[in-house]
């Protein structure tokens, strides 16, 4: 009954504070603030809560100043001011109007005394105050902070806030905060039991921590409930952790797919070991950097479109470089794969050093457009937008490539040249032309991958180096000459990596994956999806 009265009282105060404006409220506030100056330390608690109960936004700076020790009383008339130190003098600020009220020498002022108990009271009062703010996000923040650092004193304020809260999200957090706070308070077991049930439904870490600490000094009846609730929360958390891991694995898989898919064309379809593949990815990333530089300097409004502009440009740039490499070097080396490996390695060194000479050896800044920044929650998962977009992008590129190879005349020619060069040539296909275009296509896709990877990785001359070994592993693991193999290879390596990580650590996990691939190659030297038939030996 008492509690209900209290809630009513707080609600009433709120109503008054929001609806009654004018000098009376201001005078009251001024008087209340002045009382802080004369109160004994033991009375401060009460004064602070009566201040807080006004619910007036002006109270917030006053309380903050009190907590910081910036609240002073004028010795001559006992009026209390907020102060700022200005040299030897103090700049006075009227607490009610918020206006400057002249200066005073330090000797004329006396600091309002605070101790830790007062500071604590200030903190919980402040939390309670922002719970009634007009701004939804401020309320949400206050509720979350109450949930993170529960304090039994704030229980009444939380309950009052729940009574007036309209916003569902804030309300949910408040309910949880109430449950957490309630467990710390002296309420009845029945109420605590309800709180435990509520907490068990959530999956918060705070809930778990509070329950664990409550377990220590709970009586036997409550203990069972708490233990059950803890078990339930841990189970939910394990579930969501596994879910998060799956998400990370998919994300890594998509990155691997992006990096490897161009290689699946050049190595998988054409049989060329292109060690400069990683550098194509790097060139794509640097194209993004250049596009963003131009946009930043000349058309800042277009920043959100920067990736869309960079994508075709990167394809063109790296495709052209790829074409030049094929025409200039690789075409003389067909049928000598090991020599191709060496020559393309040389090209990769040249490209790296060229980029280093032009752009410098340090990381260059590539920004996220607004639609790729931030994250959202899905159940207990945190999903970042950039990772999500990269998965979508990787799958789109994969689908487009598959379509190109399987459904277009160009793709038909590419496959024909791959399967039987001489026969294709006899049928009137210009094999050198197809070779050059295929290599340019593979390089161009690597460049597009670079645009995407610039969003999650450091753009430096060494960017490509980090991907080259992984990409080769994906293609070899998946099976050469098969795009589906690359897809399966990329995602299975991603999943394997992320699921080994919790047990073995990141580096050891990676080593284990490499060892597993080496062993796997012994078992299936041609990868998961091996080509069968005469094409194999050619």
């Amino acid at each position: 009954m008492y509690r209900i009265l209290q809630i009513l009282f707080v609600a009433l105060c709120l109503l008054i504070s929001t609806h009654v404006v004018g000098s009376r409220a201001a005078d009251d506030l001024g008087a209340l603030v002045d009382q802080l100056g004369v109160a004994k330390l033991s009375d401060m608690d009460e004064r602070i809560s009566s201040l807080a109960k006004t619910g007036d936004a002006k109270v917030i700076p006053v309380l903050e100043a009190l907590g910081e020790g910036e609240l002073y009383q004028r010795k001559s008339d006992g009026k209390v001011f907020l102060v700022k130190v200005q040299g030897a003098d103090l700049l006075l600020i009227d607490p009610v109007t918020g206006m400057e009220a002249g200066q005073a020498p330090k000797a004329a002022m006396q600091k309002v005394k605070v101790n830790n108990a007062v500071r604590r009271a200030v903190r919980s009062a402040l939390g309670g105050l922002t719970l009634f703010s007009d701004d939804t996000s401020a309320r949400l923040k206050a509720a979350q902070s109450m949930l993170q650092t529960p304090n039994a004193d704030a229980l009444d304020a939380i309950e009052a806030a729940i009574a007036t809260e309209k916003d569902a999200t804030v309300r949910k957090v408040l309910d949880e905060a109430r449950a957490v706070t309630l467990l710390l308070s002296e309420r009845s077991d029945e109420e605590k039991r309800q709180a435990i049930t509520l907490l068990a439904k959530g999956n918060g870490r705070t809930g778990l921590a509070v329950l664990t600490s409550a377990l220590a000094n709970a009586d036997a009846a409550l203990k069972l409930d708490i233990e059950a609730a803890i078990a339930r929360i841990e189970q939910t958390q394990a579930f969501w952790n596994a879910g998060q891991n799956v998400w990370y694995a998919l994300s890594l898989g998509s990155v691997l797919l992006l990096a490897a898919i161009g290689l699946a064309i050049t190595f998988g379809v054409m049989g060329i070991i292109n060690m400069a593949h990683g550098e194509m990815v790097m060139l794509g990333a640097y194209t993004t950097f250049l596009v963003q530089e131009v946009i930043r300097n000349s058309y800042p409004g277009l920043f959100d479109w920067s990736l869309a502009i960079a994508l075709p440009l990167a394809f063109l740039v790296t495709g052209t470089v790829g074409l030049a490499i094929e025409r200039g070097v690789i075409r003389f080396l067909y049928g000598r794969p090991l020599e191709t490996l060496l020559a393309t390695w040389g090209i990769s060194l040249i490209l790296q050093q060229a980029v280093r000479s032009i752009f410098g050896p340090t990381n260059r800044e590539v920004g996220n457009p607004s639609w790729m920044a931030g994250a959202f929650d899905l159940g207990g998962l945190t999903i970042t937008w950039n990772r999500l977009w990269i998965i979508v992008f990787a799958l789109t590129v994969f689908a487009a490539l598959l379509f190109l190879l399987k459904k277009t005349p160009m793709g038909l020619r590419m496959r024909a040249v791959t399967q039987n060069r001489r026969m294709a040539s006899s049928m009137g296909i210009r094999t050198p032309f197809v070779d050059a275009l295929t290599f340019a296509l593979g390089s161009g896709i690597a460049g597009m991958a670079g645009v995407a990877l610039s969003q999650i990785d450091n753009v430096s001359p060494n960017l490509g180096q980090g991907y080259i070994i992984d990409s080769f592993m994906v293609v070899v693991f998946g099976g050469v000459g098969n795009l589906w193999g690359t897809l399966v290879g990329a995602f299975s390596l991603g999943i394997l990596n992320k699921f080994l990580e919790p047990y073995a650590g990141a580096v050891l996990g990676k080593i284990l994956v490499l060892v597993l691939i080496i062993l796997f190659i012994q078992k299936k030297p041609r990868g998961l999806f091996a080509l069968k038939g005469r094409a194999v030996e050619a």
Partner: protein
Amino acid sequence: MITSFLMKSLDRSILIVVAILLGLALLVPALNLLTAPNHPLHVPTYLVSLFGKYLTYALLALALDLVWGFCGILSLGHAAFFALGGYAMGMYLMRQIGARGSYGNPLLPDFMVFLNWKELPWFWYGFDMFWFAALMVVLVPGVLAFVFGWFAFRSRVNGVYLSIITQAMTYALLLAFFRNDMGFGGNNGLTDFKDILGFNIQADGTRAVLFAASALMLALCLILTAAIVRSKYGKVLVAVRDAESRTRFLGYRVEHIKLFAFTVSAMMAGIAGALYVPQVGIINPGEFEPGNSIEVVIWTAVGGRGTLVGPIVGAILVNGGKSIFTAAFPEFWLFALGGLFVLVTLFLPKGVVGTAGAYFARRRAERKARANEAPDNLAIEPMAAE
């Protein structure tokens, strides 16, 4: 018998190179130790160490040539064997420091004290003895190559696939040696060596002896490789390189032949690493970088794969060029190296020595033909370079 087996292998070019190496092993230490520093013929100590380093690189390139040039296995992981040999030697040198480290622990190397290790890990036992370390220098790379090769060749992983998984092997080792928990000094590797066999490792005399040892070991391995290549087994090795399936159908166990060459080659690479570490004074996981292994391939390619002298010439040429270039125009070294890769594969597939050898062989054949007054052009074929 063994001597005659080895002697048979010495044709003219090998003999010349061995003679040069023996001469260097005597001359360079003598010029370093016996002449005054201002004497015009004096060789400063840093040059002795630098050329000693080149000789160990040459040995590594020779080891690679045995598998790549004569067996067609392009290993992109030979730097791993080199680094393992180096680590074995480094562990011996670490144990030699004893209580003179900055923490003064008589048993544990400094980095272990720093990481709060209480006792020596089991795999460090025995490395206080030189003979044990020397054994490990050949054994560890040898066993790794044997196991790796046994699996790979048995399941007929060849060509580029083999290259890629050897690269994966050295990459995995790189990651592993970077970990502090492995007990090999992590990121910093092993360094701050003091003594080798009781001699101060910084002293001019020790450096000169190490140089001589590198030259002698290179000469020895050159003779050994030549003997292997000229033997009956060597003929089969080349047959495997040129027509693997045909050799198999003729009844040879191709996997055993490859495995032998691969293991011997890895052991030679290990020896090269062991000689490299005391002259350079440090071994760290950077030696496992996949890029290093590929660089070894280019030394061999520049000199001429499939020739025994070529890799030695190539290693010294490329590394000499690197030393000059990185000092004079550091920006351009990678351009030069990259260009070298491209140009050599496009225009000099036989390498410097191979091309020169082919040229001289043609000249000889032409002269002979003219002397016989039988201008039968069809018979003139460039001899296979060796």
